[in-house]
């Protein structure tokens, strides 16, 4: 049935709510004024210039980029075999394993972050690379496992069976047949996991310190203190980066499918 004009209107309203903040950030980030005013008194690139010469935020950006790359690599490396097992193998307790690996995603990051702070602080691991990596792995690994399970499951089982009948051992069939066909999904998982770690705010809030801090934390703290077009320029840069990553994932495996639950 063709959607009615009523449905179209309401759906447009819903999408408007979702897209409005991004659109406003875009406009305000090019403001020439000193405050987050709409409409801006004029347009300029001055706040982007200010952003890219802000030493604190740029240092945090570097940290976040390196951290996200490390975390994504770790999550893929550890998550891929687990995802393969869940998607492909038949063994006792498979559903239990899948649930265990997803469990951290069910709990509020605030509680997870607090827990990590409580156990890492006495060991002096707060505001250190290992501490932050551990904290981010907590959300990155389940996320990577979930997407890669979908990616592996999308490769027909028959392909592996065909490889066996042609003389490939199970390991060779997995490496030569399933892995190459799941590769776009694995790359998509890597990109999304990078983004998840790069944007992670709440757990990081508990685990950063003056020695080592991440971009989302610094952005949050900045926004708590003051709101000027500089923060909008930062927000716009992050939105643009995220949309670029989403486009990459859409091309690789379909974004909706990658994010889909069960």
């Amino acid at each position, binding site marked *: 049935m063709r959607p009615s004009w009523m449905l179209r209107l309401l759906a447009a309203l819903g999408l408007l709510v979702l897209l409005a903040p991004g659109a406003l950030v875009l406009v305000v980030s090019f403001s020439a004024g000193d405050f987050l005013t709409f409409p801006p008194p004029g347009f300029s690139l001055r706040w982007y210039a200010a952003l890219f010469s802000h030493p604190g935020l740029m240092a945090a950006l570097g940290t976040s980029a390196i951290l996200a790359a490390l975390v994504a690599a770790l999550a893929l490396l550890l998550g891929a075999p687990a995802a393969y097992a869940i998607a492909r193998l038949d063994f006792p307790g498979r559903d239990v394993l899948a649930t265990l690996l997803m469990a951290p995603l069910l709990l509020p990051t605030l509680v997870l972050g607090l827990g990590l702070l409580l156990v890492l602080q006495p060991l002096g691991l707060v505001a250190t690379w290992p501490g932050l990596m551990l904290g981010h792995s907590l959300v990155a690994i389940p996320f990577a496992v979930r997407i890669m399970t979908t990616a592996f499951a999308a490769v027909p089982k028959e392909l592996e069976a065909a490889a*066996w009948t042609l003389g490939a051992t199970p390991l060779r069939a997995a490496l030569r047949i399933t892995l190459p066909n799941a590769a776009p999904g694995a790359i998509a998982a890597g990109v999304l996991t990078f983004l998840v770690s790069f944007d992670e705010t709440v757990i990081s809030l508990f685990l950063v310190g003056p020695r080592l801090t991440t971009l989302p934390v610094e952005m949050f703290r900045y926004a708590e203190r003051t709101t000027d077009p500089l923060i909008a320029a930062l927000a716009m840069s992050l939105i643009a980066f995220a949309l670029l990553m989403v486009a990459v994932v859409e091309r690789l495996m379909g974004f909706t499918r990658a994010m889909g639950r069960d």
Partner: protein
Amino acid sequence: MSEAAPHLRLERLSRHYAGAPAPAVDAISLDLPRGALLALLGPSGCGKTTTLRMIAGLERPDGGRILVGGQDVTALPPHRRQMGVVFQSYALFPHMTAAGNTAFGLEMRGLGRAERARRARAALEMVGLGALAGRRPRALSGGQQQRVALARALAIEPELLLLDEPLSALDAKLREGVRDEIRALQQRLGTTTVFVTHDQTEALAMADLVAVMNAGRVEQLAAPEEVFERPATRFVATFVGRAARLQGVLEPGGVLRCGGLALRSATDLAPGPAEAYLRPHRVRLLAPAEAPPPGFDNLLDATLARRVYTGEVIALETETAAGPVMAELHAGADEAWRGLAPGAPLRLAFRPADLAVFPAP
């Protein structure tokens, strides 16, 4: 190994899926001579694909043995069985070309690059696809994909060729041609082959032996003509081809008493309630006052109930004192016959041996 030894032997092969009320495959035994083509024919869920997958090693039997050339392979994993399998979905590797797919099995056997390429090319040429060796599966039509799958399975010079409904994904028009090609290739190479299908025409046209399966069991294992003309069980009589069912009581001497008529049969079943199946192509229509040909000892008076034109034949459904009986006319038959209208009186004749008699269920 003696010439008479079966190439493939299944001994009480069974598979019972956990939670299923009945076994999917129930103690199947059969022998297949070297070079023969066996069709596993049956409705969906009869266990034919499970049987094939057990032979390939993709499914683990719960009981019984699989012997190939006298060797017990039951415990061997699929990659050590040397079976060429053509899957229903073809299962071509999407990231490899036709040549890459065909060479994969050779690579797994450790053959050198040049030898692999040569043999893959030869296999593709054998199925008439030499020119498309560099194409990915996505860039091939369904029929071409099917041939690549066949070439890939044959390239490893398999002990057995296993085909799981290989024609079901093809257009009806293509199917007949591919069917005959597969059969011709199989006979030329002399590869012992097992073929799963639910299509009786396919099974009858291609196979040396047909195993009609139902509910996990083999109902009949015989040559195609034998299966069609002399069904061993009630299931075979109804599943393969069409047949009219006549219910009655069997009397000594093979006489079936049925609706006041006494029909002669060639059965040696013990007397008692029985039912008989009669195929339409066995029923002879007699012109008024025409004498039945010699041997056509059963004569029936009938009334035409319905006439269905199906192109090559005209199916006639008639009513007799024994119950409904089907007959058929070749579409090229005389005008006089073709003009029959419902209600017309008919005389039917058939031989005693044309009745397949079974005890009543």
